[in-house]
């Protein structure tokens, strides 16, 4: 408890076992997203997006499907961490805060799973 105030010692709140984990993972995903998102944006810019065969043909290549799945997972993870901080800062009612945090986690997990499923379905389609 070095560095804690007398009040802090009495209340007895210690480490929540997370420490800088949230901060660090937000940065790790941010660094990963720089090349991933630029690659995705430039790929989309070079594709005729209204052409179903062209877009699915692009996505069927493992060189595109794998980074795309990684991009979706990283985006959802990064977004969940960011939305969490926003909810913690601005939702002051405790029960509403916990509920919205839970809901945000579930929605982000669902979006991540659905996104990866959708990419794999296209990649594995005969």
């Amino acid at each position: 408890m070095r560095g804690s105030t007398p009040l802090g010692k009495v209340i007895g709140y210690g480490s929540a076992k997370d420490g800088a984990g949230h901060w660090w993972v937000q940065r790790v995903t941010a660094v990963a997203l720089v090349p991933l998102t630029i690659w995705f944006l430039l790929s989309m810019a070079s594709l005729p997006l209204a052409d179903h065969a062209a877009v699915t043909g692009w996505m069927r290549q493992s060189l595109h499907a794998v980074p795309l799945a990684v991009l979706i997972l990283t985006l959802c993870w990064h977004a969940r961490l960011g939305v969490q901080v926003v909810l913690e800062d601005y939702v002051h009612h405790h029960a509403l805060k916990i509920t919205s945090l839970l809901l945000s986690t579930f929605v982000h997990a669902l979006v991540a799973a659905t996104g990866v499923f959708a990419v794999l379905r296209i990649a594995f389609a005969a």
Partner: protein
Amino acid sequence: MAPRPLSPHLSVYRFAYTMALSILHRITGVALASGLLVLVAWLLALGNGPQAYAAFTGFMGHGLIQVVLGAWLLAFLYHLANGIRHLFWDTGRGFAKSAARRSARMVIAFVVVAGALLVYVFFCPVGGVQ
């Protein structure tokens, strides 16, 4: 517990445009998080075959939705550039007022230039989203 003074006391500071960039990072972040739903809807439509995809792109081609997509593109470019600015700050550099203002202007310049270029690529009749 008694109410305590909370940082950062936003209201006591004179407005500076770096403050607008700061809150804009959060606003664009939340907007982009909601955009994930459209990204996944696009991937699902793509996997549902050419007809479902044509219906999806037809819907996305509506004027108002194109405006939203364009706003998402700009929000992404902003969040990307300002995110890199944040990563640079994480190394402990660039905190002086003059440096923060310079990097702010670089972010804005990037969004304007890259935004104009990509809006042209994605939303002008040849190829693109239409």
